[in-house]
């Protein structure tokens, strides 16, 4: 299976982040076409037909989301780009910003036009110092050419883009926490409804989209929705390609763009070169740390949203985390739950208390003080978080717990019972036998 490159094709072009290079490769033609010859509704229709899905995590059809913005509202409308990229195992947006910032900016222009926004924000994680600088430079370049600001491309359409840097909270990647943070408030997710499309930034209709999602838009407009949709074959409700961030025990970790009918096995073994040291594969998390884990024998699944859901997991943010046979699942899950407990905003009871409690149970077991019933309790606590919280972070914490513990229960029981890792013990037994 070959990679199909829509965005990453430009990654190897020298100075692809510069506006002149970008334009030489056909950049800023799609927005010209949109401004000259398309109505906002036509743009939205085109994006709907492309089967582009949100690549930030939730996978919501992008065109449909844009269509939710009320046309008759007197309020200003906003486009907000989610560049918070906080999901562990995910690092694709950084590559997009560093290599092709103008693809994002052009996508933002088209999206803003489609929803009627004249102000767009890029909310970028605070740690992304270089990407933020790169965006600033790109915005300055675009401004200098009259592509941003008043009357862009010589039309009467105005668009200002502002960068807002986050302060280091994972929860600020959740779109409503992001909006609160953007407004200068504490990054607490909002109750839904209302959804951002009707009440978003500054009480106004707002579309929040991921960096990568928007970066595809110029290519969809330029080459047509049908072309994009057909890149993924046989995937009914998703089209195009997406960039997978592959990390963990593979030979060639990195970003790989591929259509959504690609299987997880192809990503791990073909693109990333298989397992380091040619060890056996143990498990893969297919879409960032909050997605349920798949065992080695479950990776012949296509990476489209629906197939992964059918397999009991999620496409998420495309962060593929690969674990070889020497990975301790208890340690891995303990690490993950530490992350979610640390990042829980603390607003709602099940997530705040549940994650905090789980951490202490995992730490206790790690200290060799496991007790009978611990594994059942862990499962039940996770189930008591599931589906009962304000935002999906609760689920994001619970799902890995439930999947790890159910799929690798023996390992957890061993830790509880013996206060040590089965893997270590096994290695010792092997050493002693030889």
């Amino acid at each position, binding site marked *: 299976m070959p990679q199909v490159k829509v965005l990453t094709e430009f990654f190897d072009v020298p100075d692809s982040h510069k506006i002149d290079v970008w334009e030489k490769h056909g950049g800023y033609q799609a927005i010209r076409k949109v401004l000259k010859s398309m109505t906002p509704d036509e743009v939205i229709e085109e994006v709907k037909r492309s089967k582009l899905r949100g690549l930030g995590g939730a996978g919501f059809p992008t065109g449909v989301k844009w269509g939710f913005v009320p046309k008759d509202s007197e309020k200003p409308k906003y486009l907000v780009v989610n560049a918070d990229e906080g999901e562990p195992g995910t690092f694709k947006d950084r590559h997009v910003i560093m290599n092709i910032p103008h693809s994002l900016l052009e996508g933002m222009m088209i999206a803003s036009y489609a929803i009627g926004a004249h102000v767009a924000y890029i909310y970028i994680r605070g740690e992304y110092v270089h990407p933020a600088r790169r965006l600033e430079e790109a915005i300055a370049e675009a401004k200098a050419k009259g592509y941003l600001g008043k009357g862009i491309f010589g039309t009467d359409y105005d668009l200002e883009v502002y960068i807002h840097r986050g302060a280091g909270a994972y929860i600020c990647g959740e779109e409503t926490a992001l909006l609160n943070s953007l407004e200068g408030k504490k990054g607490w997710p909002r*109750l839904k409804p209302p959804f951002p499309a009707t009440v978003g930034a500054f009480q106004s209709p707002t579309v929040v989209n991921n960096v990568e999602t928007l970066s595809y838009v110029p290519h969809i407009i330029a080459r047509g929705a049908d072309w994009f949709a057909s890149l993924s074959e046989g995937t009914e409700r998703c089209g195009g390609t997406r960039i997978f961030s592959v990390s963990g025990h593979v030979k060639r970790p990195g970003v790989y763009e591929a259509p959504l009918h690609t299987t997880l096995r192809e990503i791990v073994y073909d693109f990333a070169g298989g397992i380091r040291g040619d060890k056996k594969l143990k498990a893969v998390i297919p879409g960032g740390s909050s997605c349920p884990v798949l065992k080695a024998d479950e990776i012949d699944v296509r990476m489209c949203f629906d197939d992964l859901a059918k397999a009991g997991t999620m496409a998420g943010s495309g962060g593929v985390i690969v674990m070889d046979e020497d990975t301790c699942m208890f340690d891995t899950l303990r690490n993950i739950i530490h992350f979610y407990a640390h990042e*829980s905003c603390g607003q709602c009871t099940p997530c705040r208390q549940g994650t905090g409690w789980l951490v202490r149970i995992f730490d206790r077991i790690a200290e060799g003080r496991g007790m009978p019933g611990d594994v059942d309790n862990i499962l039940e606590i996770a189930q008591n978080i599931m589906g*009962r919280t304000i935002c999906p972070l609760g689920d994001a914490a619970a799902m890995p717990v439930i999947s790890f513990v159910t799929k690798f229960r023996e390992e957890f029981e061993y830790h509880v019972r013996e206060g040590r890792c089965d893997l270590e013990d096994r290695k010792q037994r092997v050493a002693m036998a030889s």
Partner: protein
Amino acid sequence: MPTLKIDGKEVWVEPGTNVLEAAKKLGIEIPHYCYHPALKVAGSCRMCLVEIEGMPKLQISCHTKAADGMVVWTNTEKVRKARQAVLEFLLVDHPLDCPVCDQAGECYLQIYYMEHGLYKSRLRENKIKKEKAKPIGKHIILDQERCILCSRCVRFTREVTKTFELGIFNRGNRSVVDLYPGISELQNRYQGNLADICPVGALTDRNFRFQTRVWYLQQAKSICPGCSRGCNIEVDYNISREYKAGGRRIPRIRPRHNPKVNGYWMCDDGRYGYKYVDALDRILLPRRLDEGEPVELSWPAAYTMAADLLSEATKEGADKVGVLLSAKMTNEELFAARKLFSSLGVSRIGFRVEPKEPGYEDDLLIKADKNPNTKGAELLELGLGAGKSDVSALLDAAEAGEVDTVVIFNEDLSKSSEAERAEAVLPKLGRVIYVGTNWNATAAKADLVLPMATFVEQEGTFTNFEGRVQRFWKAVEPLGESRTGLSILAGLATALGLEPVSENAEEVFAELAEQVPAFFRGSATRNLVSTGNWLRARLGRR
């Protein structure tokens, strides 16, 4: 109007009503922590989860609008389990220090644990330590460990007082409620309400904490006499354990919900302003001055003396007598007093006392007029018609030699704008009778002092600044030998051989409503009906 079914029972509600309120209408209480009807919905505690047919997940009833045809179940196995889970979560980091917690008995962790919890603890881990017993305001102590982070207090300071002193800091289970940096203490005048709305023992009232356990308390419905708003209150009194609360019969006062007057709130001045009722300076016995020496009297002797003084004075001419009633007296007392003194021929009957400094006022509840019944006195057409201060008019008349006898009801003139003149003029008068609750500079110099009951020791009505006549009930017996205003007026009437005055407030009000048009019709009447007071019965009879 959406009509929905909750636990098999049908109910219709106003559009926009949430499921939690709709259930309330059916008498079904859905347990909740963060929801408060007067605050914006936070939807964060997750205690109010219910099952709604057609929705796969449990829904929070505080943030789910009732919809036509909705079928809600509040007590299924799934719901009960979810509640239990939330309680278990909340108690993971709770210190369980109920034996030394002042909230015990009215804590919603205790209440809901008994109703919906009753699980066996699975916690084998240490609890998180946070700050305890931290004074955050003149009236409030914060215990962060007991806090369940429902954010009611934070929303109160944002939405009600708009003073923004409180926030939730940090993240996850390290979150704490605290004052914003740079704010050393709560700055609003309504902080007592924080102790009321905090569903647990995290915010307690410095005036009330450790005074008595709440289960020793009984409640009387009352009206705050602190200003002309007339906030509806509940007087918590303790008469079964006299040694509690340092001997105070009234350890606390709390607001009583009345959407038309005070909502759920009351101000701190009103809440903590009641302490004079159990103070050591209460006047407990009638007393006269004999050549400057105090001599205590029995009531019969006191009535005889009062009657003698008044008869002597009116013999010289009824216009030589001035009466200063008080806008702190009830409508019934004012009415009976007006009747009694009018029948003696007295026409100088005032009530307006101008304070030294104008009272504080805001646009939430607090009114500048610190009297509960100015409007009532006005509707009874009392006053000397001389502008703001009846005290000034009386002093003018006294200085001019037109008045030489005054009867003062419960107004300390040394606190009025006329303090200096009163101090000079009163001692020169022939006769001064003081009827009041507590000793003060004015009472000290009176020839005769009659001890009067306070508002918690009697019943009656006040008319608030909008003309709303509000009834209050008695909590405790008058202290010492003090008597209600009506009782004192009744005794005087008998001693003077005048038409008898009823000691029964309800009877007096009936007569008042019959005779004073303002109380019979118009705003006063309408409002009285809406708050369920005496006139309803009267109207019913008609």
